């Protein structure tokens, strides 16, 4: 099934608006710089990253037992625990809880897992009205778009876009682009939602085996507004969110917000341990391909991800191609590792959407070897015949040229002649190498030609 544009095609569309691309690039780089400043204020930053990575390594090798421990402790706390093998089952479980309570409306706070499972579409088909309450999520929801970033869902939009959207859906003043005014409008609109919804769904940042509690981090307080006013709180998590003990939160909470936005911590780091008296709390633990990834030795480290988004903010490809070009709930470098695990055929292009510069690996707070894994995915995908078509043709051509010295020589001559005398043949938009970069000036002769003339002399000199 192939119903989406490849990353490079979608990026080409995004790249048409040069000014906007520059703006997108600079905005994300600004976030990356805030991350650097925050990290540099912590003398033991590198040590913290190492600790986080070690804790997560321990989690990966004991995840079976930790999940059992978590489940039994959560149940002791009065929480109902569900298990979902895939997206479909996850959606069904959530829907069945709504049905049991005869409720047709839900307020949701940000959860990339429900994006991954396409929960909103599923529920709306069943006649359930879902309102996303995180401001960025609400903006993209009104526009019927997916989030373009895991931490900053509406980072691809300018305030004029938001103003237009709010004017259309919330009746704000036309042309009023003031973020303060627009946020206030959303606050009033969502307050009413919070006060009337009986079921609230949230994501999970961390689940603690030792105590059976979950932690949800937000800046807006929307997860809390939803959960504390509703009769039923449903929290959905991929099973890799588990950490062993409560005290390990100290490590992750120090790293998460600093890596994400450069804040010292999110405004609210809420620990839900028990439901309110007389109310219900459910946790849905989801697999959806994670067990497969756990079994792939080269890629299992991607399950250590705490979804801070730092790798996206720093990635030169993400910054200049936009989150939507990744056609996957999680975009950017980490998304490009997770996506082929879900569907190799549909997502074979994503590990190629990288310069392999290693910047992602350098900023990752849990030390995932992101660019190495992208490189490894390329090899797996090519071997299994999933390489993007354009690349296959180019590679086959290249193989012919490289395997035949005469052809190689001729190709070089033709290339240099063309670049010098008819540059427009190369410097045009049909040549993917010309996109976003200038072609180099061609040398007068090839190395082989130079060597033929000067080689002997050179050798003699070296042997003197």
């Amino acid at each position, binding site marked *: 099934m192939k119903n989406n544009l490849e990353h490079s095609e979608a990026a080409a569309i995004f790249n048409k608006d040069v000014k906007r691309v520059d703006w997108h690039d600079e*905005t994300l780089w*600004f*976030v990356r710089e805030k991350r650097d400043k925050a990290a540099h204020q*912590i003398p033991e930053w590198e*040590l913290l990253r190492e*600790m986080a990575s*070690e804790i997560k390594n*321990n989690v990966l*090798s*004991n995840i*079976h037992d930790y999940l059992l421990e978590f489940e039994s402790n959560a149940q002791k706390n009065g929480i109902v625990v569900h*298990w979902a*093998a895939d997206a479909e089952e996850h959606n069904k479980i959530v829907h069945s809880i709504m049905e049991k309570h005869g409720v047709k409306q839900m307020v949701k706070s940000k959860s990339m897992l429900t994006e991954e499972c396409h929960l909103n579409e599923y529920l709306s088909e069943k006649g359930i009205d879902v309102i996303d*309450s995180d*401001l*960025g999520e609400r*903006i993209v929801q009104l526009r019927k778009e997916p989030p373009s970033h895991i931490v*900053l*869902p*509406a980072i691809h*939009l300018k*305030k004029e876009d*938001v103003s237009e959207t709010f004017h259309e859906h919330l009746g704000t003043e036309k042309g009023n682009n003031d*973020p*303060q005014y*627009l*946020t206030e409008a959303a606050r009033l609109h*969502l*307050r009413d939602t919070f*006060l009337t919804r009986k079921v609230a769904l949230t994501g999970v940042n961390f689940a603690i085996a030792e105590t059976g509690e979950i932690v949800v981090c937000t*800046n*807006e*307080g*929307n997860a*809390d507004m939803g959960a*504390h*006013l509703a009769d039923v709180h449903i929290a959905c998590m991929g*099973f890799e969110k588990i950490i062993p003990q*409560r*005290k390990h939160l*100290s490590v992750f*909470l*120090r790293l998460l917000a600093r890596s994400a*936005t450069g804040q*010292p*911590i*999110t*405004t*609210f*780091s*809420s*620990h839900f*341990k028990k439901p*309110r008296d007389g109310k219900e709390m459910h946790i849905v*633990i989801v*697999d959806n391909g994670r*067990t497969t990834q*756990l*079994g792939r030795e080269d890629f*299992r480290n991607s399950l250590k991800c705490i979804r801070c988004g730092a790798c996206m903010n720093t990635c030169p490809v993400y910054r200049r191609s936009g989150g939507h070009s990744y056609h996957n709930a999680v975009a950017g470098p980490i998304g490009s590792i997770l996506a082929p695990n879900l569907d190799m055929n549909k997502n074979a292009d994503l590990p190629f959407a990288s310069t392999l510069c290693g910047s992602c690996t350098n900023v990752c707070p849990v030390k995932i070897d992101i660019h190495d894994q992208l490189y490894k995915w390329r090899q797996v995908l090519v071997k299994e015949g999933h390489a993007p078509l354009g690349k296959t043709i180019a590679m086959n051509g290249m193989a012919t040229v490289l395997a035949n010295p005469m052809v190689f020589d001729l190709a070089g001559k033709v290339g240099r002649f063309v670049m010098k005398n008819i540059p427009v043949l190369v410097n045009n938009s049909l040549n993917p190498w010309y996109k976003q970069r200038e072609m180099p000036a061609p040398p007068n002769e090839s190395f082989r030609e130079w060597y033929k003339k000067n080689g002997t002399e050179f050798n003699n000199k070296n042997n003197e």
Partner: protein
Amino acid sequence: MSSRTIILEKIKQNQPTATSVLPNLDILGLEAFDVLEKYKTVLKGIGGDFLEVKDYDAVIDFVKKNYALDKRIITTLPELSEIADTDWFNDEPHTLENVELTLIKAHFGVAENSALWVTDALLGQRVTAFITQYLAIVVHKKDIVATMHQGYDRIGDQEYGFGTFIAGPSKTADIEQSLVLGAHGARGLIVFIMD
């Protein structure tokens, strides 16, 4: 077979066989700095405010001068009953929607990020800290620790149904990265740092 059994079975098969041990966290959070100064600077940096006070009388004075007393003010602190309601703990949480100012106490604060740890025992109702328009939290000077590591040492195996670290007022930067205070929760946070 249930999904639970299948998932757990697959995990058992696929998880790495070599187990890595948990690191020792005791070497973290030992950097030395002026805890109170740091707390104040970071709090200002994230949009919060503070006032150093000697006792609850000073808090009462400040509230009288700076907040509209004809609007609804609630507290969990009996010491503040002169200026705030104390009999709302068992009300339906939705009825708190018209609260202008909430005054509560924190177990402790953390200097490195200015977060304050509160649990439902101190909140009265879980939604209190979020539904209110403005929030004020009292913390004792001696209860401000350096980093999150000392923070979780303090929490230890404390029992609670709900607990949260609050760092500054509710905020968002979702519209073109411009910071706006007061997204859904409190529009302002003032911390009374008490002797």
